[in-house]
């Protein structure tokens, strides 16, 4: 598999929120890229800035209280930051779609699913009623909704959670996007349904050669679908690499800790590793390495110096100089 050309390239993105006095550094200088036909995952615990990163790409950060204070978001050679709303709508209607975590709240309860998919289609192409109907049925069929010709007249509440998520994916596909951003699309679903949705996303992506930016807190899910992974903590990227690099030879203490914390039947009888403490409040992040209060490997300088990215080669990077230079650091 080669995915060479970058489709989306985010550089040094900073998104801050002003809330009663304190300034929350929700996203604090992240860089990542999604190449053509690639599935990239951003994984991290709640509050680390995953959703804010996704919303920034689509120009959906509520301003105020939010503000993109720095960085670039280059999509197909165009910087999306400071794009006017009309141009942004064009991007959203034709090139990038998003699937959210809770399909019930993102579908409108008073319209049928056919109306809503139809609306999504019409924002990006002129099409007559009969062709529109056929296209919507086709989309519902593609995402595995049984008897789509009848189901097209259903209201959201008549569908199961998994079916609603399929409808959301159908809507996201309606504009034939180059990139789908999926923000925890299976978190509210049962494992069996989740497995189907993941398999569906994968097969659609292959068929349509799209790129997918998949956001999740679930390392199991991520390992199942990712080509490349970014591990996020407290608003920054702490490690990146392909699935093997992250799951077999994680280099950052946080990634290592997360993997070791996962319960599984094979660990029965052994004590689970746990990362002490909690995720910092983004308004009061510790100085230096934001992970240092929870890190068992920290040294004095970790409390002062912001850690740089260390390159392990072949695209594997980790933001922990302490482990990178075991001897003599910091000199």
């Amino acid at each position: 598999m080669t995915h060479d050309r970058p489709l989306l390239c985010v550089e040094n993105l900073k998104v801050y929120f002003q809330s009663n006095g304190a300034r929350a550094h929700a996203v604090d200088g992240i860089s990542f890229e999604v190449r053509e036909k690639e599935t990239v995952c951003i994984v991290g615990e709640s509050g680390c800035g995953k959703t804010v990163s996704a919303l920034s790409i689509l120009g959906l950060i509520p301003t105020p209280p939010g503000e993109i204070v720095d960085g670039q978001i280059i999509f197909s050679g165009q910087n999306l930051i400071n794009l006017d709303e009309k141009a942004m709508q064009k991007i959203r209607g034709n090139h990038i779609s998003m699937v959210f975590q809770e399909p019930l709240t993102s579908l409108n309860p008073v319209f049928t699913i056919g109306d809503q998919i139809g609306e999504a289609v019409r924002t990006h192409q002129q099409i007559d009623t009969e062709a529109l109907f056929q296209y919507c049925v086709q989309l519902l069929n593609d995402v595995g909704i049984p008897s789509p010709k009848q189901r097209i007249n259903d209201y959201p509440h008549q569908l199961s959670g998994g079916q609603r998520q399929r409808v959301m994916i159908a809507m996201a596909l309606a504009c034939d996007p180059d990139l789908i951003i999926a923000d925890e699309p299976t978190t509210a679903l049962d494992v069996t349904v989740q497995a189907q949705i993941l398999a569906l996303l994968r097969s659609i992506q292959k068929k349509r050669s799209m790129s997918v930016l998949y956001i999740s807190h679930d390392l199991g899910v991520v390992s199942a679908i990712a080509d490349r992974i970014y591990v996020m903590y407290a608003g920054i990227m702490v490690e990146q690499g392909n699935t093997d690099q992250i799951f077999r030879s994680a280099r950052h203490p946080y990634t290592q800790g997360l993997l070791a914390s996962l319960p599984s039947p094979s660990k029965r009888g052994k004590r689970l590793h746990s990362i002490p403490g909690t995720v910092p409040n983004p308004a009061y992040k510790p100085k230096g390495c934001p992970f240092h209060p929870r890190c068992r490997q920290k040294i004095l300088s970790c409390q002062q110096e912001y850690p740089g990215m260390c390159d392990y080669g072949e695209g594997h990077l980790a933001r922990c100089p302490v482990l990178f230079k075991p001897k003599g650091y910091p000199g």
Partner: protein
Amino acid sequence: MESKNKNNHSILRIEGLKKYFPIRRGFLQKIHGWVKAVDGVSFEIEQGKTMGLVGESGCGKTTVARLILKLLESDAGKIIFQGHDIRRFSEKEMKPYRKEIQIIFQDPFGSLNPRMTIGQSIEEGIRILGNKHATNRKERLETLLSMVGMSSDSSDRYPHEFSGGQRQRIGIARALSVEPSLIVCDEPVSALDVSIQAQIINLLKDLQDQLGLSYLFISHDLNVVGYLCNTISVMYKGHIMEFASSEDIFNHPHHPYTISLLSAIPDPDPDIKWHVKPSNGHIGDSDVVPEGCKYQDRCTIAETACLKDKMVFEKVRENHFVRCWKAAKNHGSSPD
């Protein structure tokens, strides 16, 4: 299940437990049918051990929990706790048992009074125990807080001042305050981040070792259940489909539903290939329950016999039961 009198060590045994909820429709709210939320559930929890109850959303797990705690009245069956069938006990007869069975929830926030300090919430439980700890209530409070890894200065603070993981610790401290012997844990770590989840799981395990607690652990996360539980009951549409030790459930699953659940877990081990075919079988969550096997509409090996006959819970090995005639036929004939 049919296992006889090896229950000297069982703290809780459920037999044929049922709860049907009426479906009411129309202006007169006439009863149109029944949601068979719990439809003849049987299982057993050994003293000092943990039984996992797994299954998808809506299969009846929480209802089972509420029936055991008698927060909800059951329609039939037995709830044998420490040798007594408490199912039809009056409020008064229940009194000595109430404190023995406690529950912790997915979101402990909902169960903590927002206007009471943490200390006040926990002390309520200590008071219920009567004079046993009356003289040194403060001391007991500190012991409880330290048992769950909280500092004693947290007792003057209010629930909203704590994170999800801390609130779960407080919920556990409150459950422990009445010195129960069985704790029903309804999705206690589902809302927590991985790193916090591990802390709480370790805590539950430590407390079990220290206090000899028994747990009924409800979860939809098979990795958590497989890690923590001694035995597992797999539930589907109000029925227990399979019961066995954790090892047997993971290594020798028999029921087609258990097998499909296990294959759906994405495993973070890169050496394990994860294949799930995008089945076009609709995973319906309709309340209409078919005759015969409740799994028939999703089962890939269903036959005509599955559509009619009521499935029985059959023993396939020692301490391993399955509600599927095909699975039982393939494996049940061998003597154990």
